[in-house]
């Protein structure tokens, strides 16, 4: 189909304006991470006058960044794995069975999405403290508490999206498998999971990103022992000097892996949204 001049102009303007909007902060992040401390403490310059990799070396010692990194990776990986597993089972039930309380369950789960985090932050904190006093299981200041909390954050979206995905898989396949003697778990793992792979990948990415970027609960539930990157990165500016070059270097290092993974799998994410959310 041919394109009119107006369409072309519209496209060029939109692409240029939005690219500048996106790229300016990214440019600032990358270039500032390569500047010596002196140069980020004076007037800003778009092009670095001197280039150094020193921020990438000293950022590990200014704050225990490696420790926070390990915490974030463990918390987010375990929370994602559990969240996807729990969501798979729940979505299987919602999509393939009609049971008592099914609609109550789906409505309630979805409506938890609108709860303000500050409403259950403090009660949850108090409950965790009491569980510790009663049973000795430490949930505040440990990775376990964060894992349990984070895995519920992505659960509503994951269940909803996977149930949508499963709904799109013909039931004839289930029937055929059942005739061949498949048990329900066999149907889930041999039929639904393989066909819903893009949806599962999308849900896993979403869970991981939600946990990786969470700040509110991390700021209350973490101590030095289990501090995640989300809170750890802010500690650079409480030092005597504000090490902006190191902050930018650290921001870059914590972003690059997750951005690359997301961009590599973005097709799954888009097709997951199309099948699950948009029907």
């Amino acid at each position, binding site marked *: *189909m041919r394109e009119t001049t107006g369409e072309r102009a*519209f496209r060029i303007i*939109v*692409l240029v304006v*939005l690219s500048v*909007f*996106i790229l*300016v*902060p*990214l440019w600032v992040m990358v270039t500032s991470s390569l500047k010596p401390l002196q140069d980020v403490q004076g*007037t*800003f*310059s*778009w092009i670095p006058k001197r280039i150094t990799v020193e921020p990438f070396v000293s950022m590990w010692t200014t704050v225990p960044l490696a420790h926070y990194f390990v915490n974030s990776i463990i918390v987010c990986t375990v929370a994602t794995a559990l969240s996807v597993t*729990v969501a798979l*089972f*729940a979505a299987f*039930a919602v999509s*393939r*069975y009609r049971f008592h309380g099914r609609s109550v*369950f789906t409505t*309630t789960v979805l409506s*938890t999405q*609108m*709860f*303000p*985090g*500050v*409403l*259950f932050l403090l*009660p949850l904190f108090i409950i965790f403290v009491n569980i510790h006093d009663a049973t000795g299981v430490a949930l505040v200041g440990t990775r376990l508490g964060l894992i*349990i*909390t984070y*895995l519920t954050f992505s659960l509503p979206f994951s*269940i909803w999206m996977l149930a949508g995905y499963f*709904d799109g898989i013909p*039931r004839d396949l289930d*029937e055929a498998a*059942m005739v061949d003697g498949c048990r*329900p778990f066999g149907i889930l793992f041999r039929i639904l999971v393989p066909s819903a792979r893009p949806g599962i990948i999308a849900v896993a990415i979403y869970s991981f*990103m939600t946990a*990786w*970027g969470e*700040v*509110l609960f991390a700021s209350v539930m973490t101590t030095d022992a289990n501090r995640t990157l*989300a809170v750890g990165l802010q500690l650079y500016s409480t030092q005597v000097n504000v090490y902006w070059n190191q*902050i930018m270097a650290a*921001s870059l290092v914590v*972003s690059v892996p*997750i*951005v690359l993974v997301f*961009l590599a799998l*973005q097709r799954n*994410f*888009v097709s997951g*949204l*199309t099948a699950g*959310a*948009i*029907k």
Partner: protein
Amino acid sequence: MSSQSIKGGNATSAARHRRSRRRGWWWFPYLIVLPAVILEIAIHIIPMLTGIWMSFVKLTKFYIRRWNEAPFAGLSNYRLVLNVDTAQGQAFAHSFLITCAYTVLVVSFSWILGMAAAVALQKTFRGRGIWRTLFLVPYALPMYAGVITWNFMFQRDTGAINHLLVDQLHLYSDRPFWLLGSRAFVSVVVVAIWKMWPFAFLMLMAGLQSIPSDVYEASAIDGASPWRQWRSITLPMLSPVNVVLFLVMFLWVFNDFNTPFVLFGRATPPAGDLISFHIYNASFLNWDFGLGAAMSVLLLAFLLVVTLVYLVILRNRRDLYA
């Protein structure tokens, strides 16, 4: 909604047949849905009910250690927050209005930018994948990394924004503060849009993929302009996406805590005092958790009412056209 109707339509002999064969397995769905139910109850429902209870007690710093001994306060927390003659009530009302303005601006600009980008990338052309990837970067970026960078850019003496506006464009004679005073509102809105619009883009792009291209071809033969096509094809075809997108964005943006928290740190300017941030500060800086809980409950009630009204209006409109 639609899954419900599919289910209703499918309740034929096959389904009955299946159910009878699984009679011994009636407990199976309950079993596999159980982990999700337990987690939701433990992490969302019980804490929420506890939060509602907390809003009726005087849970100040004297009772933090012995919170179960806190005296019953009745409605006094609510009365204090809703009374605009008190300092707390005034601050709460101010924060609420700021948040409303913030939400309207962030949601509408994010939608406009996301729609513009999705339409601009609708037709194939060389390099489309690169733009699409670039536009998704702020979404994939951990939220605090992006906001910390903006914080650096908004610094008065060392930031990029003032360098551009003052040193290079000479728009101001004096270096303005972007994270203090009334300009803080502009800053937090810009950062939130930067972070949010790629999500709108993602959803709208996914929605556009489900519109068959022959609809456009047919209308182009009829001589419809691109603007007309957008209004008569794209927009109506995207309305299921928009329904979800607006609701989700509204809830996220209204509850937004991260952006002001990372952007402003401890020094909250009143112009950037968004409601979640306000409640957090009221609870943890002033150690008055009962008051904080009352404000959270009011916030939840507001979100609930808006969501219900939104869904009812949509349902009525749909019935009208159906």
